[in-house]
């Protein structure tokens, strides 16, 4: 991991500092003592237009740097305890890991395998952002110990598309505007994809009227979809789009897209109207 960061910084061009920033640097003698990589960090942040903010960050980082145990370490090392060997399949690829027994599947995916599609929301089973599919079932990666996944097959949002082709559910989410900020979307997608199978198998939900008769290939109502997706919270409230997307893929009936981008002509027309307003 540290090597990757070094490589990243090496490839950055030496940034240019503004006159103000150079002035500040000379006024803060402590910063002058910093090593090469920290100056680059500062410069990189400055190049992004965050000059003063970067200086504050840097001051904080200096405090943190004094707390570091290993010289030059980007992160303070955390001792691993009770290491467990686990072999599992992630999106069709065999993986062998040795990790602390405490590591959740969510952290293993994000921090060990760089599969950051799966999101950490509440990290305690209340939001559904970390939903992945394990052995065909949607589960919460935050409450799953990686150690317990020996021999299991995990599908994350990265594994839904086939080569360059989006999964129909992904395409439908775009078509029906099923997200705004997108943070809950990977979990919503994995959940929705697994839901399709559950409906095919005739599995019931709290919204199922009669539990005593079991049919396969259920035709889910909007209420059914809402109930079955209740484990995935969307802070932006994109629920209508999510339900529409799932309904389309589930029913196989194409429905009209209810949004479109504004055309150049329409923007031009708007600009003209604004000018007219100004004249008035």
């Amino acid at each position: 991991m540290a090597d990757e960061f070094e490589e990243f910084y090496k490839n950055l061009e030496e940034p240019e500092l503004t006159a103000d920033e150079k002035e500040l640097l000379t006024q803060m003698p402590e910063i002058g003592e910093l090593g090469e990589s920290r100056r680059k960090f500062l410069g990189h942040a400055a190049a992004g237009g965050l000059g003063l903010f970067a200086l504050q960050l840097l001051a904080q980082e200096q405090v943190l740097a004094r707390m570091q145990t290993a010289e030059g370490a980007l992160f303070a090392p955390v001792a691993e305890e009770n290491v467990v060997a686990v072999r599992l399949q992630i999106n069709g690829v065999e993986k062998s890991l040795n990790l602390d027994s405490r590591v959740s599947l969510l952290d293993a995916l994000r921090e060990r395998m760089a599969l950051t599609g799966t999101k950490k929301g509440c990290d305690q089973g209340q939001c559904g952002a970390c939903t992945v599919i394990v052995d065909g079932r949607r589960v919460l990666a935050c409450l799953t110990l990686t150690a317990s996944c020996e021999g299991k097959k995990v599908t994350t949002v990265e594994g839904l598309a086939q080569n360059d082709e989006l999964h129909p559910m992904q395409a439908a989410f775009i078509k029906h505007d099923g997200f705004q900020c997108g943070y809950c979307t990977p979990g919503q997608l994995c959940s929705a994809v697994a839901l399709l199978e559950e409906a095919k198998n005739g599995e019931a939900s709290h919204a199922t009227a009669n539990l005593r008769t079991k049919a396969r290939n259920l035709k889910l109502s909007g209420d059914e979809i809402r109930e079955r997706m209740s484990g995935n919270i969307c802070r932006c409230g994109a629920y209508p789009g999510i339900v529409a997307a799932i309904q389309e893929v589930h029913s196989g009936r194409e429905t009209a897209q209810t949004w479109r981008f504004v055309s150049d002509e329409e923007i031009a027309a708007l600009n003209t109207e604004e000018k007219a307003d100004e004249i008035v």
Partner: protein
Amino acid sequence: MKSFKYTRSTDAASAVQTVSANKGAKFLAGGTNLIDLMKEYVERPNELVDITRLNLAQINSVKGGVSIGALAKNTDTANHPLVRQNYPLLSQAILAGASAQLRNMATNGGNLMQRTRCQYFYDVAMPCNKREPGTGCGALEGLNRIHAIFGYSDKCVATYPGDMANALYALDARVKIRSANGQERTIPVQDFHRLPENNPEKDNNLQHGELIVAIELPKNNFANKSYYLKVRDRASYAFALVSVATALDVNKNQIKQARIVLGSVAHKPWRSLEAENILIGRPATDETFQQAAQMAMKDAKPLAHNAYKVELGKRAIVLALQKAMSGGTA
């Protein structure tokens, strides 16, 4: 999370031995409650014995009823044809709980073992006799909107939050347990959970190291007329404020047998035999249901913030009985 030794168990005997030999060890099944509580430092085991690979997930027809494996997932249990057909009340209760993801992870044994959702229990900065015996009860004079109205003590006013156990109680289920000496014993589900009394740290009557292996459901005549009603702050994916498992055996509009078990009102599923007795031998009318509901709530002792549960409970009972009479459909 406190560090712990992790082992995968392949047979029940060794799993029980390992946990029995270490006071700090726990069984790990679905982990939906245990891992959550470990992240909060409420649970701090030094060893987890993963039992998910034990051969205890079958759901079978047995002499006198149906046996449900302790490690069968909640989803698979609620959807099993034997359960849906013969014990729809159990399917309804399971499906009323948590989310699809959690039900896919959670096991039946683990569901019985889930701990209270009292916020003082979850917050390690607060006093809680259940979490740290002797520290006091934060909820008794604190915020107790979601707490008990029956059977509490001055040591603890927490409720058992689950749904499945309420249905199991109404269905006269029995919990089969394997002990450290290799013996098996069976506890009626009504004696599985306990009231807090002076030691609320004990949720149930299991000994340390005992493992739930199965839940047995006897045959009954309730399948046509049962209903699980759950009232919560939002329509789905929330714990109950009050829930009611009702089951009726009715012949020519006369009630022969009845079950009324309330959830989230006490430290254990709360059955009202007095209310059931009002129903038995009477016609299944709204008037009868009202009287039963009145009786079920007669001895309720609400705390500062949960008096609403008394009226809510009465209405929930009446509605659940009406739903049960109309075939128990949602």
